């Protein structure tokens, strides 16, 4: 049994990491009142940028390449998210619609560029990826060490740390208080001298940045190249994780880990004796079915930020 956990948990964590980053981005955006269905597209942007940068500059930067690629993906995706911000905040667009547009655009544009630059439908494979590590000291803890702290990727651990950072920012700092105020009651925030549009722009760009990281580490660690299928639904899963986690950073992290676990179980499950005879389809649909059940069962009603989805127009009631 322990051995099985040693197999399932590390893979659950690496599945979850990109979702955690992206879902945390979603928390920022939606806490400020801007729906972000475009997370999928922002992940695509991050994955594309990360891979292209890695392929282009691997020779110059060697071992640092994936890290730099991650940062560049973060910047590019956050610039890309500006489109959503402009539409949703300044142009009063329907936020869901604008997010859908972001998804279409990111995929279309990145594949277009791949075809233009590489002359084919997918990039080459990157040569330099993130390293697997055993965390010093912690990995030596009996039982827990091998399960939680061995055989992991550094970005995965960063994701978990980041969730706590985001929690601190949102619940303990003035920035967080203002962010939440803007998402709950933008007019109240406005009358308190908070620049609603600015807060929302920052939040949306943060979501772009984090989804960009999520996309780039996903592509670098898992697929190693970029194609139409690299990001296929992870953004939506991150969105689900965010909602499942009740728009709370730690909740989102927990939900992402849960998805990662279910995903991992669905794959590894085939190798576990008592699950071996279960038809694969049950294991495949497990994460999705469990999510629905969980939403229905324990947290029936997730209360979204009140102003979520409504553009703020000064002076309108």
């Amino acid at each position, binding site marked *: 049994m322990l051995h099985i956990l040693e197999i399932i948990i590390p893979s659950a964590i690496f599945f979850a990491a990109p979702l955690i980053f992206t879902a945390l981005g979603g928390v920022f955006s939606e806490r400020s009142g801007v729906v972000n269905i475009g997370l999928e597209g922002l992940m695509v942007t991050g994955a594309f940028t990360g891979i292209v940068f890695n392929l282009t500059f691997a020779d110059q930067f060697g071992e640092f390449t994936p890290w730099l690629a991650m940062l560049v993906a973060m910047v590019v995706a956050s610039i890309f998210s500006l489109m959503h911000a402009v539409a949703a905040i300044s142009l009063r667009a329907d936020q869901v619609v604008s997010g859908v547009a972001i998804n279409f655009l990111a995929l279309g544009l990145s594949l277009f560029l791949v075809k233009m630059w590489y002359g084919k439908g997918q990039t080459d494979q990157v040569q330099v990826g993130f390293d697997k590590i055993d965390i010093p000291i912690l990995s030596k803890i009996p039982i827990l060490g091998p399960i939680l702290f061995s055989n992991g990727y550094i970005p995965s651990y960063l994701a978990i740390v980041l969730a706590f950072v985001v929690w601190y920012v949102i619940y*303990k700092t*003035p920035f967080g*208080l203002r962010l*939440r*105020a803007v998402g*709950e009651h933008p007019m*109240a*925030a406005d*009358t*308190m001298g908070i620049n609603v549009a600015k807060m929302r722009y920052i939040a949306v760009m943060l979501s772009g940045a984090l989804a960009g990281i999520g996309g780039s580490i996903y592509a670098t660690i898992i697929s190693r190249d970029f194609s139409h299928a690299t990001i296929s639904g992870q953004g939506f899963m991150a969105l689900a994780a965010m909602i499942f986690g009740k728009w709370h950073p730690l909740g989102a992290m927990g939900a992402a880990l849960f998805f990662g676990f279910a995903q991992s179980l669905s794959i590894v499950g085939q190798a576990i004796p008592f699950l071996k005879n279960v038809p694969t389809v049950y294991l495949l649909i497990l994460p999705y079915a469990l999510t629905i059940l969980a939403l229905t069962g324990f947290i029936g009603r997730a209360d979204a930020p009140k102003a979520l989805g409504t553009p703020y127009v000064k002076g309108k009631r």
Partner: protein
Amino acid sequence: MEYVIEMLNIRKVFGNFVANDNITLQLKKGEIHALLGENGAGKSTLMNVLFGLYQPDGGEIRVKGKKVNIANPNVANDLGIGMVHQHFMLVDTFTVTENIILGSEPKKGGQIDIERAEKEVRELSERYGLAVDPKAKIADISVGMQQRVEILKTLYRGADILIFDEPTAVLTPQEIQELIQIMKALVREGKSIILITHKLKEIMEVCDRVTVIRRGKGIGTLNVSETNPNELAALMVGREVHFKTEKQPPKVGKPVLEIEDLVVKDSRGITAVDHLHLTVHAGEIVGIAGVDGNGQTELIEAITGLIKSESGSIRLNGKEIRNLTPRQITETGVGHIPQDRHKHGLVLDFPIGENMVLQTYYKEPYSKRGILNFKAIYDKARQLIQEFDVRTPDEYTKARALSGGNQQKAIIGREVDRDPDLLIAAQPTRGLDVGAIEFIHKRLIEQRDKGKAVLLVSFELDEIMNVSDRIAVIYEGKIVAIVDPKETTEQELGLLMAGSKRKEAGVSS
């Protein structure tokens, strides 16, 4: 110069609509200055200009003699101007303290110093007699308490000029009295106040001077001591207004609504209506007086089927209707003017026309075999718009675009037109101006005179005293007294509503 604020010839235009047309308002230090006008006269707009939410299209603003440009609420805050908005600007999920410090949070490291903030809020609330619990969530406290938080917000920022936009519209009589005391205390501390209200009595009671505006134009400024309610009302509306609605003695018929031993729980599962008895007869208006939160909302929602009741009996013309569906109850003959017109009364994104058949769309002539008959629907809508003086460009206009008063008239038209035996009116005039109030009161009395039973729920004692034939006082979910409006006083009612004096409960009526 003795003026702390001077708004000179302020002009504000929305599209083609002139909301403020060269309005001048001057505020003296230490005075309470009323701003009076009908719904839509432009009062909130003018104050939003002063607070920096809108930029004026003309005129100038001086603060303590100095010309200023109030580009946003931050500038207003810096100039010592604070505003308590007509619709509260509070974040429900935040605590009192969080709401107060929002935007100027005390910090320790990069973190909010919440302890210091709570301490400051506590000190401030003690100093001005504004009792609040700094740690309570806004969603959990009463409206009156919420208003104190709004006032504290301005004080926390060191405002010495306070704008109150219709602060009393949402308060109970007790809370209004408390607010008046608070305002007086504030003025004693050297603050100056601009007060927007439709209630002339309040103006007479606390204000020093009053500026009247009508349809965006300034009519003038008067000393309160030199005027009277009738003059003010006439100035505001532009014609004579009758406060006491004329009515004949009631011709009381058989009982229409009989409630016995009714128990209703609220959304949190707490008993809100507690073994209540009440009877309303044909041809009479029964007013329910009570402080907000004593079970009025639950009582009405139980009668109309919006929520389920626990036990007891509700009979309409002798037929048991308790826990039937809203549709069945409507069809039995109940009309309902809901308390919250935006939430319950209208589908704001439907045209006025479609709103007029909200409960009857499935019946002939509005539809036949499941197919709507738009001609019949819009014919009816035109008729009601005409009859109830609903001011709207046409019947295809979305309900959202109408002013509150006109939305209310549309609802009343719809409910009355269905010709129900029992008409329930909950807060039918909340936030409306005197002209609209007069109109609505007349309609209610007209229904009574046609032999309908009318149940009126209101926090406005004036309204209750004025319109009702009998007053039932509700306290903690029970009817604690039934009184005759001609034989009672506001003081007595106030005491009954506070639960301090019990009369024989009106089972016998």
